[in-house]
């Protein structure tokens, strides 16, 4: 995997005044992020309920794609089955809330924990599988999940084909906002925390080990990186992220059913990952935007040809931004700064 990874290339040494430039760029970046955050905070007051709901879903899909990105973009392990972890997280939340009366905010870490355990366990046998074979194994996971959810032995918990209706989370009494807005902010907070965690992770020693395994497993092993351990852990963390997204998804949609977590969901995550940019954190949110909105756009152009139009848009995006939205932004940034320095 030779995906350019994030940030570091942006600050590649280019001159002597590196320190100063870097500081200047960092401040620019901070301003950009502060602006993005400010917009994100204001949005729910600008749009009506269902758009707020859509934006919440974009963040949730972005988070799910981030989970997949940690595994595929940073660690080089393929998964075509992350919809299964998303579904698992959603069901953990639904079952805990509706069966055991657990408060909704506790179910989110619980879903993350369960998915981490399942992901790490799945990662163990997956160690023996490389590339396409691993992709196939995870594919099996995605195919199996909807059937398992319908399995009558588990029906007392999963509600079978009928699924589970999830209660609307209550807005804290002191806040003058409605449920959609509250869910948006709750999701925003969780997603911000998770993205910050991921950013720290990939910058850390552990992150470097994870990426070293992707770039050159043998060299990484020679450097003393414990490959099986890191691979398994990455699988677990990746499942955790996607599982938390699933939990948030269950809260936002307020309903879970086997049909919600079909194979197509996993494919959508993969599409979002590649179009957003492998190995990029902000790119995941672009992936979320694409996954949610582009099918709607395609349908509004022509219902009969919706699938074809979706494909055309996807091809266009790939041609214009071959390294994903993140790579495109990076190129644009580099171009602008080169032009300024002339």
């Amino acid at each position, binding site marked *: 995997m030779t995906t350019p990874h994030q940030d570091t290339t942006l600050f590649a040494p280019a001159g002597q005044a590196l320190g100063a430039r870097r500081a200047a760029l960092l401040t620019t970046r901070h301003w950009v992020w502060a602006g993005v955050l400010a917009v994100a905070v204001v949005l*729910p*007051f*600008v*749009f*009506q*309920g*269902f*758009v707020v*709901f*859509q934006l919440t*879903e974009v963040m949730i899909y972005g988070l799910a794609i981030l989970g997949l990105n940690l595994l595929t973009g940073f660690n080089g392990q393929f998964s075509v089955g992350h919809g299964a972890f998303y579904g698992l997280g959603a069901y953990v939340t639904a079952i805990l809330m509706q069966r055991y009366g657990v408060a909704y905010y506790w179910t989110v870490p619980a879903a993350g924990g369960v998915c981490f355990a399942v992901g790490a366990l799945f990662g163990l046998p997956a160690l023996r599988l490389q590339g396409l074979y691993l992709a196939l194994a995870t594919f099996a996971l995605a195919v199996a999940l909807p*059937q398992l959810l*319908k*399995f*009558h032995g588990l*029906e007392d918990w999963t509600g*079978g*084909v*009928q*699924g589970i*209706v999830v209660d609307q989370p209550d807005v804290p009494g002191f806040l*003058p*906002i*409605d449920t*959609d*807005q509250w869910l948006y902010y709750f999701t925003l907070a969780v997603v911000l925390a998770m993205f910050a965690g991921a950013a720290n992770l990939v910058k850390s020693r552990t992150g470097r080990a994870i990426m070293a395994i992707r770039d050159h497993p043998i060299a990484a092993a020679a450097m003393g990186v414990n490959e099986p351990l890191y691979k398994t852990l990455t699988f677990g963390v990746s499942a955790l992220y996607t599982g938390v997204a699933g939990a948030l*998804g269950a809260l936002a*949609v*307020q*309903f*879970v*059913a*086997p*049909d*919600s977590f*079909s194979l*197509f*969901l996993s494919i959508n995550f993969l599409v979002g990952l590649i179009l957003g940019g492998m190995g990029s954190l902000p790119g995941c949110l672009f992936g979320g935007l694409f996954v*949610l909105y582009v*099918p709607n756009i395609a*349908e509004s152009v022509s*219902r009969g040809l*919706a*699938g074809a139009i979706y494909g055309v848009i996807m091809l266009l995006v790939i041609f214009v931004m071959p390294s994903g939205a993140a790579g495109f932004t990076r190129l644009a940034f580099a171009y602008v700064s080169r032009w300024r320095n002339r």
Partner: protein
Amino acid sequence: MKNLTRRTILTAAPALAFGSPLLATRSARAAKQYGPGVTDTEIKVGNTGPYSGPLSNASPIPISMAAYFKMINDEGGINGRKINFISYDDGYSPPKTVEMTRKLVESDQVLFTSGQLGTPTNSAIWHYMNEKKVPQLFVSTGATKWDDPKGHPWTMGFFVSYQAEGRIYAAYILQNKPDAKIGVLYQNDDFGKDYLKGLVDGLGDKAASMIKVKDSYETTDATVDSQIVELKAAGCDVLVTIAIPKFGAQAIRKVAEIAWKPLHILNGIASSVGVTLKPAGLENAKGIITDNSFKDATDPQWQNDAGYKWWVSFMDKYYPAGDKTDSQNVYGQSIAATTVQMLKQCGDELTRENVMKQAANLQDLELPMLLPGIAINTSPTNFAPIRQAQMRRFDGERYVPFGPVLTGAIG
């Protein structure tokens, strides 16, 4: 801020953000009362359906609905108002149904939705619609739970529910074979259990003594051979098969193979000649009994029937690409016609409250493609528009209807 953001935008300025025309016009005139989505010239009706995804073969239902509304509009609409039928693709994915339904209600501002397709998809928006008090009418699914006027007063079903069908079979057995030894083969999920409950309820006190064996299968099973053998060995003389087409066909073939001759009752959704009976062997399927509420478009006996002839001319003109052997085109047209009747009854009082009131006030509505003697009836305590069906027997080539129209009342 609460009032400033959501409510106000919803009721006063729905279009500001998204460029849809200003619609929430509240007429000053006393005689006319308009809810969201209604003007002097238009009524907005919402719908979601699986145009893509695993169930896309069910998309003729919303397509034929749209065709029927186009015909009504071409004929001048209802009291001068055209129906603006907005139907979105949900790919049979419940989260997408939620998203699209919220778009219909909050952005497009439809007066109500009609004929939304699928059990899990409708379940996903069930609470939302009832909380928002938006009528979710004539849903295209056979589950029994839509008939719940007390718990969910804004949702209404359409088809004969699985439980009602089970009761109809019970009524038939009680009348024609009161000393039957019944064996039941059912699919072990909500669908199968829904049916079984109807059958047991319908048999009433006699259920325990009449039903000798209840055997179930999983959709993951390879065959139902062992269950059939077991049911025969238990000495049953009536076999009720509650299955999807694949297992229905297996059951029919196995029954013939072991030379068992029970009275074989097959549930409606597995009764298709093409999908179930042909694979099982038409000769093996001879004598199968099932029920139906609609005219079978492939049945030659309707060739000269006025209703059928009208339906064919409607299809030719407004949905020429549609498959006239696909019963879903019958369902879609029937749902749309029921919707139109409800809107006619509303007159100029086109509010969500009145829509619900009139939907629960359909009396003896006969439709071109309903069997003679079957009519749509609703009331404030009955949210199941179609409750009746007629038995029919397969003669080796086609189904022959017989006997009276039966009602799925609790026995």
